[in-house]
């Protein structure tokens, strides 16, 4: 019944279609854009010669044209021979970038949500001075912009990983793990400094519900703390957190792209393509569309991605939150 209600609103249908589209593209990436060298997979396909510095318009070979890559960014598998300039196929990175954006968005959102919900549930259920202290700590974290953390984390933990001349054998085990799972400073910083809304939300819901009669009833029949928390309290607190999480996915990917854009690191592929396209957006003679293929497809994908997850969040809100249902 509720599913039918959900489906009857066109915004919700749009949201499901968009997010499903991105998931399908991400899964079908090897079919849509075959890797030129399957043994050595990459998010970028290098085409053209060293001296080609003008973006090529869409052609049969490169469906969405190319974008020149002038300098080698050491964060994406440094290739010593190719440190001059070459061009990237936009279409290839657009398709594979879907995979990278989904991976980044879902991973970071999941980690923040889990962290926030656990801390919020603990502080809400235990309450007292401990809960108060935990909430003050949450408020303290709120004052910290993640951008400053990116720098510090990069400086402290990624010095060796980002060093292009470092031999993999010399990396410490945890550094190898970070490199293998492609975890970058931006990811860590965003997880560390965006769990607070979840904690506040879950904390306020649980501390409100804790004194209600049905919880007292559960206590009086001798239910354990764990049972009360997981069976009776969390299901009520988790739905707003899910809505928040769905709305967060798109925003996080945009923020990560912005971090790449201003040059402080990260490896969301769309962001890398956009920072490469920077000089061509400014264009010649004030016409931003002169080299449209360098940024329009990827920007549209980014906007669509964000709109899709935002709409999905709104839809889930009307589905899960009885007060917003009208």
């Amino acid at each position, binding site marked *: 019944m509720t599913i039918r209600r959900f489906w009857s609103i066109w915004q919700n249908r749009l949201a499901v279609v968009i997010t499903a589209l991105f998931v399908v593209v991400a899964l079908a990436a090897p079919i849509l854009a075959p890797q030129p060298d399957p043994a050595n997979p990459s998010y970028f396909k290098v085409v053209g010669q060293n001296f080609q510095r003008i973006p090529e318009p869409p052609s049969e070979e490169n469906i969405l044209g190319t974008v020149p890559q002038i300098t080698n960014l050491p964060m994406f598998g440094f290739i010593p021979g190719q440190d001059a300039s070459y061009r990237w196929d936009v279409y290839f990175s657009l398709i594979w970038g879907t995979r990278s954006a989904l991976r980044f968005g879902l991973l970071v959102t999941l980690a923040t949500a889990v962290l926030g919900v656990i801390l919020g549930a603990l502080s809400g259920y235990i309450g007292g001075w401990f809960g108060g202290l935990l909430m003050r700590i949450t408020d303290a974290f*709120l*004052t*910290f912009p993640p951008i400053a953390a990116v720098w510090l984390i990069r400086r402290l933990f990624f010095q060796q990983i980002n060093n292009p001349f470092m031999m993999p054998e010399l990396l410490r085990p945890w550094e190898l793990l970070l490199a293998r799972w492609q975890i970058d400073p931006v990811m860590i910083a965003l997880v560390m400094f965006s769990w607070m809304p979840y904690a506040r939300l879950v904390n306020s819901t649980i501390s409100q519900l804790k004194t209600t009669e049905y919880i007292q009833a559960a206590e009086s029949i001798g239910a354990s703390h764990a049972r009360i928390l997981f069976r009776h309290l969390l299901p009520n607190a988790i739905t707003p957190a899910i809505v928040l999480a769905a709305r967060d996915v798109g925003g996080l990917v945009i*923020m990560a792209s912005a971090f790449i854009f*201003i040059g402080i690191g990260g490896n969301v592929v769309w962001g890398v393509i956009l920072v490469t396209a920077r000089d061509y957006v400014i264009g010649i003679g004030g016409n931003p569309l002169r080299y449209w293929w360098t940024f329009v497809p990827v920007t549209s994908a980014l906007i669509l991605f*964000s709109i899709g997850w935002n709409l999905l969040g709104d839809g889930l809100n009307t589905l899960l939150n009885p007060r917003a249902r009208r």
Partner: protein
Amino acid sequence: MTFLKFLIRRLLAIPLTLFVITAVLFAFIVTAPPEERAALYFPPRQPRILTDVQIQAMLERIIVEHGLDKPYPVQYANWVNDLLHGDWGWSPTFNTDVLELLLLRTPVTAELTLYSVLLLIPLGLISGVAAGWRHGGRTDAIFRFTAFLGTSIPPFILGLILLSIFYIGLRWFPTGRSGVLDVTLRRATFTPYTGFLTLDGLLNGRPDITIDAFRHLALPIFTLSLAHWATLGRVTRAAMIEEIDKEYITSARARGLYNRSVVWRHAFRNALLPALTSSILSAASLVTGVFVVEVIFNIKGLSELITKGIGAFTPDTPLALGFAVYSVLLVMPIMIVLDLLKAIADPRLREGEIAS
């Protein structure tokens, strides 16, 4: 009187916040080996290239002098002591004292932030209320569409497109901070009273400098405001929709009150709370946004320290750490103002009846 008590309680929370953040940051730092952390205390300028033996000796001297091999609390206390005494280290990238560098760049960033906040908060509240009051109508449809676009367009692409049209194409709004020669600003006749070019121009009787500064600020302010305006407007709208279905609104209308008075004196005051809460949650992301916009529009504010410091060949730990501490000091005033506004809007909060 209760308000005063509330104020005192809020102000007492500031040291706690600072303590938590600095302790977490320092816990990060401590994970690095002492030899690496000695970079925090390097002397200002290396007179000549040192030999390995000399460097080793210097490292050992620093480790002993600053107790880098002591347990965490001792080191933390030492470090905080240094911070309080204004000793934030020396940045090799800029070859300047870190605190001095940060203070020098602050007015630039603060000016941009201040004007954006002054623009986006009234606009966000008004448009949210207008859309929420007549939700389902045409205003609402237009608002929802713009707000969705506003949150979804990456600010850096918007900034680039604006630059391409209004700077390179039409030449209306230049980049950078000011078109006035640096010499003019440093002359003895031009006193930097506030550090804000827009105000200093007026105070020094040079309205042309003010106008020029505003021309430079127009695009950054617009880019920065759009996304945050959209978020604030959407929260206000949702809160308004929730409020206007309540019975007190119906009764106010039944008594024949004017629409304007029902909206602004009744519904809006209650809808303000969620809006302010959401602003508190996004205060830090506003500062992040400021840095992004500064880079795009080539404004040499605090963000330049990040972009240069990260790309620097010599690892600039003192600046990275100083910047992290400083950005907390930057966000906190915003949070405190929002907190106080919340308490003004809701008497229950300042009476301590409900928790924030």
